[in-house]
């Protein structure tokens, strides 16, 4: 009875996590919390849909959509990066709201409000163990896990990864040590854009293919990043999965289902309070 909800929750959660990793890589490297992340994913999905409608091979259409999201992310990083580097984190984040609104405006201008679906070939392939599981859902779960593990290893082992971590610690110092700061930052924008594109296409297949909806999905994603304390990739993965599963299980029962959409905020708030607990104790001891 509850199994289908757990599966659906894991899938949606893994997509939150996948998106979260893209936001986190960018944040850790450049200090930019990209609110335009959902819009980048939305544009990838909308373009992929458009290319499929234009009779392009679906796989190429998805690739092109992801490519455009990557290019837009890189372009924004290239143009705005130097300015963003000099301002506070709050100003950086606010600047990306501009990116989100511009992309959203362009999408609402380009596409009307009619029904659209991005049906991946893997949506209808699947099997039943207690509940129906599609290949797309497995791709979501596997991709999220692989990306999290892969990115963790990359950040730890490769020189670029080390450079990214160095930038996260101290930008000025990293520059003085001879790290090509701009280059590393642009790589982060690129990786982040690609992940946005991937998750946008998968999200549109698992939820809704609508520009506004996909743009604002950045909010639950942000909650997953909060759970990862803006640092931990594994924490973000766990956060995404927990949010997804709790949300889905909450929606299964009439008593809790009207509040299920509040899950991301609830989980994020609980985590923030939990992480603050030591400070409270310290203050009391100090008294």
């Amino acid at each position, binding site marked *: 009875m509850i199994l289908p909800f757990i599966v659906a929750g894991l899938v949606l959660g893994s997509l939150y996590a996948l998106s979260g990793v893209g936001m986190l890589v960018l944040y850790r490297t450049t200090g930019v919390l990209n609110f335009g992340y959902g819009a980048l994913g939305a544009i990838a999905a909308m373009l992929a849909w458009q290319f499929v409608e234009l009779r392009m091979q679906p796989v190429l259409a998805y690739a092109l959509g992801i490519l455009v999201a990557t290019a837009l992310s890189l372009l924004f990083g290239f143009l705005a990066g130097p300015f963003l580097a000099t301002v506070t984190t709050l100003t950086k984040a606010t600047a990306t709201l501009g990116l989100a609104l511009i992309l959203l405006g362009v999408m609402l201008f380009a596409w009307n409000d009619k*029904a*659209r*679906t991005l*049906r991946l070939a893997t949506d209808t392939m*699947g099997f039943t163990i207690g509940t*129906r599981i599609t290949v797309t859902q497995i791709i979501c779960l596997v991709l999220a896990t692989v990306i999290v593990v892969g990115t963790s290893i990359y950040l730890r082992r490769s020189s670029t990864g080390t450079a990214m971590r160095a930038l996260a610690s101290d930008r000025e110092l990293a520059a003085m040590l001879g790290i090509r700061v701009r280059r590393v930052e642009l790589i982060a924008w690129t990786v982040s854009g690609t992940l946005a594109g991937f998750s946008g296409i998968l999200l549109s297949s698992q*939820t*809704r293919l609508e520009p506004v909806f996909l743009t604002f999905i950045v909010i639950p994603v942000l909650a997953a990043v909060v759970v990862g304390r803006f640092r931990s990739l594994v924490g973000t993965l766990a956060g995404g999965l927990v949010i997804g599963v709790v949300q*889905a299980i909450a*929606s299964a029962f009439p008593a809790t289902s009207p509040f299920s959409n509040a899950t991301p905020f609830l989980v994020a708030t609980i985590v923030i309070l939990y992480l603050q607990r030591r400070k409270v104790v310290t203050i009391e001891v100090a008294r």
Partner: protein
Amino acid sequence: MTATTARSVLALSVAALLAATLAACVPDDSGNGNAGGSTDKDDLQCGLANGEAATGDPIQIGAIATESGGVDFSSSPKAAAAYFDCVNDNGGINGRPIDYAYQDDQLDPTKTAQLAAGYAADENVVGLVGDATFIGCDVANAEYAKGDLYSITGVGVPQACFTASNIAPVNAGPRQSAIQLLQWLEQEGKADAVFQVGLNTQGNGDWVAAGIIEYAEANGINIVGTELTAPDESNWLPLIQKIKDSGATSVIIVDPGPITAAILAAVEQQDARGDITWTCTASCYDAQFGSQVGPYWEGFVVNSELQLVTNAGDDNELWKSVMDAYAADDAPRDTFSQAGFLAAKMFTDALLELDPADISRETVSQAMLGITNYDSDLLCAPWYYGEADEHNANHSTRTAVIENGVFEKLTDCIDSGDPALASILDREKSEGLVG
């Protein structure tokens, strides 16, 4: 750094080029639900149909439609504009051209109120035609009532559009659309256990859901479930599970097309269509819908508030040909477009009865209110305006079914059994508004 940038740009352009050249095309096997008209521009029978351009003093007509903000209802005023252009090329209103323009309320009721107040205050604007505001009927009506300004609205959705003194929609509205689906299910013997799905929106979703329940109670139909979801819902599994658990034999979906498409995609992914008869209100009747939901949904039933776009009929043919001749190629050819066209046609016919020298807001309002018994093959029953605090002249609609990815006619007109229409039906009889 420059080298990296150059390399990235190069890589991206090469990839784009590769994709473009390698993009082997998938053959186009989808049908096209939009049949064009077959009448030449010079032969169109608009207004006086005398082929002479109107050159007199222009008559100002306005409209408010929601065009931006995520919802686009502008196909109604666009069709009205096309018809008025055709009228102006054919003698206008006894020699006087119509100067028609619509404004976008951007899905913001404050903006609707501003625009409505602007029209009400501008005495040069004698009437409103083909309006289609998604959110502002109540605030707009308050302004119109103050200024004695009347609107033949193309499309109304929330309850407020049907309970207004100065607004009379051409379409039937979601409540009639939903109830008539239930009536169809009843006729077909499929209404044993009905599950309804809609939006949890005040003055709209709740109004429609109540309509289904009222009709069901009056006619002994068992509604096994009512699920009103938030407009930003994305997880459809609970809904699908509830439908399964309820033992429903049929489902009525009253969501906007995009949300319905997402629900149907989730049902397909779960392969949960089963033996249930799935239906949707007129919000799903759109040429693109069938191809978007895919072959899994062959046999999906929807309601249409006006004549099917593809069907024959003098007015339907005139609408298509006027759109071909006077509207942009990308202007949608949908129900809303038909509604805007019909609003403009009824308005024109009413004004042609007036003395062209005596066209003022007062005379035009009287002419609009005086429209009764207006026949059109786009409608099921005659349309009328009449002085009243509620207007729902169109309460008889058709059903269509997806066949090979496009909508085909399923049934002819079904007249609404909505208990709440009683007062309207009484007035139709007592005031002789129809027949």
